[in-house]
Each structure stands twice: as C-alpha cells, then as structure tokens.
C-alpha cells in the first residue's frame, strides 16, 4: 500500500500527466514559470478574498494546488494574511456586507500589489447584478488589474490569467 500511495504522487502524474492529457496546460505552465521568475524572482504571494462568491470559484482556486496544476512549482503560493501578499485574488460580486472587509484587506496589503478579479461575478456582479445587496464587481470597491472571466474560471483559465498579470504587470 505504501508504495502505491507514494508512487501515485510521483511523476508522471505531477509533471507529465497534465501535459499528456492537456497539451495547452503544459505549454501554459512553461510560460507561467518563465514569466513569474522574470517578474518576481520565483515568488508571488496570493491572498484570496471571497467577497460574496457562490463558492464555485473557491473550488477551482483550490484545484490549482492539486497534483495536476501544482501551482507552487511556479513560485505562486497562497498566503494566510494580506500582509504577506503581492496579489489579492478576489471572487464574488462584492456584497455590501463584505465591502468594508474587502477594502480593509486591500488597505492591509503592502505595495506593490495587484488585484485580480476572478469570475463573472467579480467582473461586474454577474448573475447577481442589480441586486440591492451587492456593490457590483470588485472594481467598484478597489482598483482591479486583471479580470479572469468564467463561471467559475477553470484552473487552466486561472493559470492563464496569472500569466497575463506577470507578463503585463510591472509596478
């Protein structure tokens, strides 16, 4: 059993299997790595903030950490405090009940910092647009550097978005 368990985590799963199953992802992974290293020297700390999501985005952000996507090999990592973060990855249409918490999280993040709005709700309120209870998109509360569309964005789309941020973003 021990062998099965340990072998299951070794290559080819982590490195080759995603490539074999998804060539686009493998190519993307290579570019993200290069771009992230160039911009940030192998380290980009991401703080996730749920500002009213249905939890769909969170599930896919979680998936970035699994053995297929293994985000940390590119130097991206999720951190527990905005004080440690370079990037705020924000989901949800920004409910009015979360607006102050999002603002305070943004204020607590040291510069230079980037804000990524993940998903259709974070872009413009999505299917919840027009509700009395939402601010309507992350950019209505804090400045947004990048929007990753999708409902929810797939892990590959999230990787692609982070790549775009790295290649385009210099502060």
């Amino acid at each position: 059993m021990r062998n099965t368990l340990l072998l299951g985590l070794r290559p080819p799963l982590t490195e080759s299997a995603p490539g074999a199953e998804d060539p686009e992802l493998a190519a993307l992974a290579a570019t993200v790595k290069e771009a992230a290293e160039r911009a940030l020297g192998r380290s980009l700390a991401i703080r996730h903030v749920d500002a009213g999501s249905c939890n769909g985005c969170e599930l896919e952000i979680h998936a970035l950490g699994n053995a297929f996507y293994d985000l940390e090999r590119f130097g991206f990592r999720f951190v527990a405090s905005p004080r440690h973060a370079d990037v705020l990855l924000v989901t949800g249409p920004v409910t009015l009940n979360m607006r102050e918490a999002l603002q305070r999280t943004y204020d607590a993040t040291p510069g230079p910092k980037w804000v990524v709005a993940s998903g259709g709700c974070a872009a413009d309120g999505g299917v919840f647009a027009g509700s009395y209870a939402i601010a309507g998109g992350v950019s209505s509360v804090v400045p947004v550097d990048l929007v990753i569309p999708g409902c929810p964005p797939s892990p590959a789309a999230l990787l692609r978005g982070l790549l775009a941020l790295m290649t385009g973003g210099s502060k």
Partner: protein
Amino acid sequence: MSASLRLSPANGAEWREAARLLAAGEATLMSLWGDEGRMRMALRQASGAFLFVEAACEDGSFPSVAAVHAPADRLERAACDLFGFTALEAADKRRWLDHGRWPLRHPLGQPVPHDGAPDAYPFLKAEGEGLHQIPVGPVHAGIIEPGHFRFHAGGEAVVRLEERLGYVHKGVDRLMRGANLERGGVLAARVSGDSTVAYGVAFARAVEAALGIEAPPRAHGLRGLMAELERIANHFGDIGAVCNDAAFALMHAHCGILRERTLRTAKAAFGHRLMMDAVVPGGVAVDLTSEGAETIRALVRHVRTTFPSLVQLYDNTASLQDRTVGTGVLDADLARRFGVGGVVGRASGRDFDARRDCPYPPYDAMSFKVPIRRAGDVNARIWVRIEEVGESLDLIETMLLRLSGGPVRATLASPGGACESFALIEAFRGDVFAHVRLADDGLVARCHLRDASWFQWPLLEAAIEGNIVADFPLCNKSFNCSYSGCDL
C-alpha cells in the same frame, strides 16, 4: 420528493399547534420562510407526511416558532430581516442577514430606505475568570467563504463559539421574484456552487411539480448521474481537507487527484467541471454520449482501484486518528432535535436520506445503503463520507446500465393560473428544500431554497464546546457547512 402543496388555512391556532409538534419532537422542521403578508412553515411528521402551515402577518407579526423550538431561530430572523415581520415572544431579536449595510430594510416586504450604517451586533457572553475572546473572520486564512466566528476560550478549551453569518448575502430571494424559469434556474444553480446540481434539481423539481409535468425518464437518469458525481467529488475534497487540517497532507494530495479526475470526467461527460446549468426545469440541458458514459465508467473503475488504499491509510494511521476520534462530538439527541441532514446527521445516528425517505427519480427505483454511524465525532463524519462514496459508485454503475433513451427535456407547459409546489433533494451536504410559487404569467413569484447548513451551523457551535481551539478547523471542515447556501 415533490408534491402539490395542500396548505392549511392561515390561522394562529394551527401555527401554534405546529410549533408545539416541533417542540415535542413529534415533527421535524423542514423550513420556515416569509411570503407575501405571511409566514410559512413546512414540517415532516413522524409518519413521513409533510405538513404546511401559514401565519397571516396582518399586523406585521406572527407567533415566534424559535421561542419554543431553537432550530427555527436563524430562519425566523432571516425571514424577519427580509420581510419586516416581527416574531412575537422571540428570545433573540438581533438581525441575521441584514447587517445594516444595505440601502434599505425589508427588501421583500415594505422596503424602508436605510443609510447603510452598520448595526452593532452584541455577541452572547461567556463570563468567568481568565476567559478570553478570539474573533475570527469574516476574511479567513484559507481559500474559503467568509463568516465571523467569535470564540470564548478558557486557556485552550472553547467555552463558547458563536457564529455570525450573512456576509455573502446577495439578495437571491428578491432576484428570483419576477424571474422567468430559465433565469430562476441560473440563480438556483449559484446558491451554493459546490451543490449546483442538487440546487438545479431542487428548483427544477419544484417547478415541474407546480406545473404538473414530469421530466423524461432519461433526464432523471442523467440528473442522478450528475448528482452522484457531485457527491463523490465533494466527499473526496472533504475527506482530504479534514486530514489536511490534521497536517496529514498525503491524504489531501491523493484525494485532490481523485476529485480532479471526477471534475474532468464531469467536464467530458456533461460539458462543465461542476456541471453548472446542466439541470434545467423540464429536464437537462445536455445529453450524455456513449463516449461520455464510458469516461464515467472509467472513473468508477479508477476510484475502485485507488480509493481502498486511501481508506486503509486513514484507518491505519494512528497519529491521524488521534486527532479525529472523539473530537467534535455531536450529540445524537441534538442531531435529532435539529433534524440535521446529511453526513452531519448520519454520523450522529440520524437515519435520514431524502433519496431513500422522500424518494424521487431515479432513486425511487433503486436500492442502496444509507451509511450510519453513532459516535458523532470527526472520525464518524469521515467514515460516513467514505462509505457514501462506495454507495455512489454502485449507484452510478446502475444508473448507467438503466439509462433509457429518448428526449432529455420536456416542454414546459404554461400554468393555467398561479401555482406552487415544493421539492426535497439530497445534496452532498444534506437535504435541500425548495419551494416555488409561480404567478399566472409563469414567472417566479416566490422561491425559497433552504440549505442543509441552516440546521448544521448551530450544531457546530455545540460540537466544538470543550474542544481545544486548535481542533476547530477539523470540526469545521468535517461539518463543511455552506455560507453562500444560507446567506443567499
């Protein structure tokens, strides 16, 4: 289960009698919600029969159910926030969903403008020498939903936990009002993203029952397949995440692989990793090809070969069991009183599963085991999940075998007049109750969706009592309540 509503006449005596039944343990609260000018309540009696009662709120008030039956507390407070009703004799008059940050009060009743200045929220007290408070949230340390936890601790031990939720309130109930059925389905699918299939089915079945139509047999089979894929994907995630909160990353890594393979299978078979918007009123939006069916079969074979060694790993790792056995015990009597559904209830001996006990297709023609444990601890909740994965794999294989041909979507009849109905659907987290009332133009007049977590969250407060603060993540993850599903 879904059926036409036969409502008792709005009458204070019936309402109070229903509350008495709940308090006496002779019925289980299914939901409590506001509607135009009245409060409504659904109960399930010991016989399995549903009972619906209403209280007319002519002067804006109704007799509090929470005053005699605590599980009604948050549902009642939420309804009061949304409709502006007053619950007479209620012990807890604090607002629940309304934090004072909206531009109005009572968005579903008679709206009153509000300046958006946040309300104070006095937490319940715990007093004693050396007690201290630990405020946590709404922004949490992990990649999870927002909510506030207020701990009172004596040294390491939790003396009291109180939750404050409502942070992700998006106003779903009001967005539903006046929505057409397509838009209603899209909103229902986004009440709680991890249960998008279950909510899709709940909304669709309530609508279908109201209109008096039935989805085609093939649609039932496909809904069942999607629901079971959703269940195992979430169970893999939860089993791994609980172990990860005990710093046992190996289980988390392997469960993450199984979850990812399940999501990829869902994408290949139904076109979306979470199967969002795949269920629609009248049937399903996407048909399954023979290649799609084969991917699902391959997934089942894969899980059958790999999952047992993970279960063995869990069972044989004493240091991990040391964290889960005896931790966060939920008392069986509390579980029964709250009528708590899902894994949380079944790990504390509450033998209820809507798929079996309020059967709906395709489960009404299938036999399966409902795993039960009695210890009520984190370990029991893990084992119920493990055993449910096994049952789901059997169900998936049987559903594939029995999948009939034919259309996957029925035409929706226009209603002859205003109509309403309800459905009870077993999501991975527990039973989802859906009530839909349609106006005579066929648009949604009222839609109330009650997540299983409404009755689970309060019990987490009970289960953590006396445990050490460091075990809270384990307890919390083993419950895995939904924030968005309750905040709406």
